[in-house]
């Protein structure tokens, strides 16, 4: 097992004082491969000469159509797109295999919560010194930018593509007919849950599989699960905020005030389609999920900010979203960066991504796209994306761990038990924490 590069972060201060000598010209993305942002020289990201072909592996549908726009304009930097299965459905594992075999694509799609896993395995090229990258920083909120830099000085390991700011989707018509005010705080939300139950519905659905949604709720409450000061991971999934959120939802589950179907299934869709479930605290991409899963309810939905822990606050969170990385071993980091800046910050590409793949752009340039400022019919002509743009500005930053797939699956098992009445959500987090620490140790990653 290779010792994690992050262990070397403590040495960054020392390394920074040593000039990097002999940084070879762009033969590899990182010259000497110093995996930390210690003033990498510009030579580390030199342009290649002649015509370049970049391989780009992603699961975003119709990405090929968006890239075709670029290929038409840039005959010297041609991008070949491979559309594969979703990251956690095998593609991440394939990336790791390909990195091991030395045939990874130049560019890949990686969700924010999985970036640290690739970073810890030293699979990402540092594109911080590539031209235009540092300038692109101003296009993204600090919280998002931090997701792709891990706070490592000048290093940048990915360019944010889409983001998943969260808000409250609710059945406007049902709330109105029942005379229940739209909840603005979590306390009001719990009260509304009781009233809705009396009407024979459920305020929402708590799915055991959506641990990343739960992490968003924790981050909104100001909590963190992971911390990597000075290169050692600190895992704490049962701190004040985590406990508060877990106890809150445990209470709703114990009182049988929420539905507990597995999410994104037919029964789950049906519960929304038939008006059984009234709200969903979800990300911007959820708009599409509801409109296609619950077509009978067209026009009855609206979007409001997430309920708050303290009245008058405006804290939001993120669920999902992904970035584009340049894999270590790519021979053309400069060209790849140039393409990624176009793909993720130009109006042309962002509107194509929004139109073809329904992506909500992470870049602030994207918030002004006509499609994202006009009313949406399914949501009673409310300009819902404006709500999400506001939420995006208020996302509380959250640090992801390097073994999120394992963490999700362990916590999800515990959530499943809690839903069926064995143990609580807090127990699930406790055992998730224990198992995560064990997993980090098994990978020789320094952990407290």
């Amino acid at each position, binding site marked *: 097992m290779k010792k994690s590069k992050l262990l070397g972060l403590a040495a960054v201060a020392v390394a920074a004082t040593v000039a990097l000598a002999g940084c070879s010209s762009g033969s590899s993305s990182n010259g000497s491969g110093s995996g930390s942002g210690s003033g990498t020289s510009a030579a580390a990201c030199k342009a290649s000469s002649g015509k370049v072909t970049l391989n780009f*592996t992603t*699961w975003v*549908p*119709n990405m090929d159509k968006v890239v075709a726009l670029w290929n038409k304009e840039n005959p010297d930097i041609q991008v070949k797109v*491979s*559309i*594969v*299965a*979703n990251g956690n*459905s*095998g593609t991440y594992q*394939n990336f790791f*295999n*390909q990195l*091991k*075999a*030395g*045939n990874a*694509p130049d560019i890949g799609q990686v969700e924010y919560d999985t970036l640290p896993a690739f970073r810890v395995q030293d699979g990402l090229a540092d594109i911080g010194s590539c031209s235009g990258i540092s300038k692109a920083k101003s296009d993204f909120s600090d919280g998002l930018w931090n997701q792709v830099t891990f706070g490592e000085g000048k290093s940048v390991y990915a360019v944010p593509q889409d983001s998943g700011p969260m808000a409250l989707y609710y059945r406007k018509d049902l709330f109105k007919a029942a005379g229940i005010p739209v909840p603005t705080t979590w306390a009001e939300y719990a009260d509304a849950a009781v009233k809705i139950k009396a009407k024979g519905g459920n305020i929402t659905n708590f799915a055991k599989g959506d641990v990343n949604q739960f992490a968003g709720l924790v981050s909104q409450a100001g909590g963190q699960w992971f911390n990597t000061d000075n290169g050692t991971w600190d895992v704490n999934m049962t701190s004040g905020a985590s406990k508060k959120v877990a106890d809150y939802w445990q209470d709703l589950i114990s009182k049988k005030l929420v539905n507990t179907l597995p*999410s*994104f299934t*037919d029964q789950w*869709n*049906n519960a929304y*389609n*038939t008006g059984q479930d009234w709200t969903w605290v979800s990300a911007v*991409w959820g708009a*599409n*999920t509801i409109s*296609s*899963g*619950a*077509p*009978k309810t067209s026009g009855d939905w609206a979007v409001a900010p997430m309920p708050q822990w303290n009245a008058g606050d405006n804290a939001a969170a993120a669920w*999902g979203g992904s970035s584009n990385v340049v894999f270590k071993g790519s021979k053309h980091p400069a060209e790849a960066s140039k393409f990624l800046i176009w793909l993720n910050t130009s109006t042309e590409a962002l509107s194509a991504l929004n139109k073809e*793949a*329904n992506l909500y752009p992470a870049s602030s340039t994207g918030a002004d796209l006509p499609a994202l400022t006009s009313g949406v019919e399914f949501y009673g002509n409310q300009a819902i994306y404006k709500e999400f743009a506001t939420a995006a500005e208020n996302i509380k930053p959250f640090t992801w761990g390097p073994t999120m797939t394992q963490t999700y699956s362990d916590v999800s098992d515990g959530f499943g038990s809690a839903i069926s009445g064995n143990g609580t959500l807090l127990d699930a987090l406790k055992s998730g924490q224990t198992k995560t620490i064990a997993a980090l140790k098994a990978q020789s990653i320094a952990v407290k």
Partner: protein
Amino acid sequence: MSRSAAMIIMGVFTLYFLIPIFWLLVSSTKTLDNFNSSFSLWFTATSLQDGIANVGRLFTYNDGIFPRWMLNSIVYATVAGGLGTILSAMCGYALAKYRFWGREALFNIFLGGVLVPATALALPLFLIFSKVQLTDSFWAVFLPSIVSPFGVYLSRIYAASSVPDEIIEAARIDGSGEVRTFFTVAIRLMSPALVTVFLFQFVAIWNNFFLPLVMLRTQTLFPVTLGLYTWNSNVSQYPELRTLVLVGAFVSIIPLLVAFLSLQRFWRSGLGAGGLK
């Protein structure tokens, strides 16, 4: 047990096996809206036109990628299956009819190969193919697919019992070479078993999903299983893909039905053949 009781038990099991397929057929003829809301085991009023529209969308979506996947699966399964069957037959015949040093040891290794799941071999194969730069190519799926230890095992057993040594001797006396004897005489006698081997191979390759998942990233090389899986993996964010997955799954079982129904008669003639000796 009375005849009617036997019929009832068989009927129940028939239903048990057919209901999922019937559900798939019914679901293929629904819009996403109806799929989420109507009774799942019966058609809706607009099933006919919705079903036709769904199939149309399936074949045109993403510049007609689905027919391409079907074609890939058919090529992988028939060509690699056919080649694999011939290789298995030659190997099994040789193990059954020739005496050479290490024969039993070799056969036992093949037998061990039957016990190794294909899934466990995918990753080592990926690393081997990476060394010769053949990953993400047609060969990455085709070459491993022509190997079938189970086919060798079956061929050997069958060659031993159905190809009499006297016939081979007679062919030799008539001046036929070993290869010619195999292709003109032995293969005919072994044909019922070979149909079985071919069907097993065909189904195994058709359903083999993990190897292509690990090997391929170019969509135009995908077999239909991997293609549908790719769509299905994005259903939560792109729900409109769900109908395509359902219709695609239904369309993709049709070639298997055709293969089984058309090869069935060869099977039957083979199964009874052993009972007359």
